């Protein structure tokens, strides 16, 4: 029923002897103590607040078991800023007031962080389409789109 699991999160190895049924999001939050990854739905995996990167790809950590990620590398929102420098998305979210309560923000950032490297030239409609898996209840999305668009452009010009 239990397994030894080691997962590298943001470059740091975390290990635990954990129940097989433990969700990855619970490993991140309770075993690694990284609480920036949030849970906003029950079983349905619809809200996107728990989005992280697995092998560099944005996925929902509530729809994975921690055992499935044994030996793998993941990145959470805490790993987005590097060496004290904010990620371009974090800067643009701040500049454009793209967050209010902040609960969905981690998931938005992680999804967008992969998306803007994949599609630096995306227009607003494509950005909106890319965010289908992340619900925000506060902002009405307009400022999130502005922030991601600005970040994509900055990213592309670097």
């Amino acid at each position, binding site marked *: 029923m239990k397994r030894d699991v080691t997962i590298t999160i943001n470059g740091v190895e975390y290990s635990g002897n954990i129940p097989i049924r433990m969700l990855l999001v619970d490993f991140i939050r309770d075993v690694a103590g990284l609480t920036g990854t949030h849970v906003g739905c029950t*079983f349905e995996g619809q809200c996107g607040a728990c989005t992280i990167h697995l092998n560099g790809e944005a*996925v929902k950590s*509530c729809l994975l078991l921690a055992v499935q990620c044994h030996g793998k590398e993941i990145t959470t929102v805490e790993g987005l800023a590097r060496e004290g420098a904010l990620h371009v998305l974090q800067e643009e979210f701040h500049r454009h007031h793209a967050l209010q309560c902040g609960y969905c923000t981690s998931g938005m950032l992680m999804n967008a962080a992969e998306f803007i490297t994949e599609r630096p030239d995306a227009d607003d409609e494509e950005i909106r389409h890319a965010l*289908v898996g992340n619900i925000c209840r506060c902002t009405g999305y307009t400022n999130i789109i502005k922030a991601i668009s600005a970040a994509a452009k900055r990213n592309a010009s670097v």
Partner: protein
Amino acid sequence: MYPSAIQNYEAPDSVDGAMAAIAKFGDDAHFIAGGQSLMQAIKSRIIQPETLVDLQNVDELRSLEMAQGVTIGAMVRYRDIAANAGLDGRLGALRDAASHVGDRQVRSRGTIGGSLCWNFVSACMPTVTLALDPRLTLGSEARGRREVGIRDFLGEPMETDRQEDELLISIFFPEAAGRHGSAYGKWSLLTDGLPVIGVCAAVSLDDDNKCTSARVSVGGLETGPVRFKRAEEELLGAGFDDLKSHEGAISAAAEEAEIFDDITGDAEFRRQLIRSVGLKSIVKAFERAAAAGADQ
């Protein structure tokens, strides 16, 4: 919310290993592919597996080969299909569907094989494959490999021909001479949601741009996806740009289809959606078939 207790977890790295694992643990073992549907069921405890056999490390299941037809491994993800420019024309419907299943995150995990084995009532992949008519390879430790056509594979919603100890290995679309095109479209209340109606059309054209074969499947009905034979028959002989025939074909089929009211829409609404979504899919399929000709 949380899964019920799971006793065993195996992550084999080969097809043989996967078949052996499922044979070893028996009835209460489940394969987990991308897990985007299965984990919902496990977390809501509708499914309480004793053993999970995780297929993520089986590289063979992840391959997509384009030689003498197209072979798509069961663990090929929506994301990979959507991004594969080689899946055009004849198999364009696969990309149409794969680009709009769920959301970005789901498409990075969800797989074609997982979707077919789950066979959710209104899911896109069963509808699309029903029209594209591939052959599926399954395998088990006890009985070895076998092939089955998609029509025989898909059963009632949530049921398939896959036996409990069997692994879906790949989906094979044989090579076909001539000019073919397919397209898929769906309608849901929210963007990229589970379809209220999804329609896939696959057509072939002769040198005069007349339809020589057509397959039309409709998803979103409580029966699961069905072929619209009436539409297929009416499309035969239709010109690739004969909008009136296309419209007539799908309308006639929509009219006689057995459709029921439910929470997402009444029967008349569904019929109307079949007409409008279906027409778009048919027109697009013809365009693709015609364009395939232009390349040759």
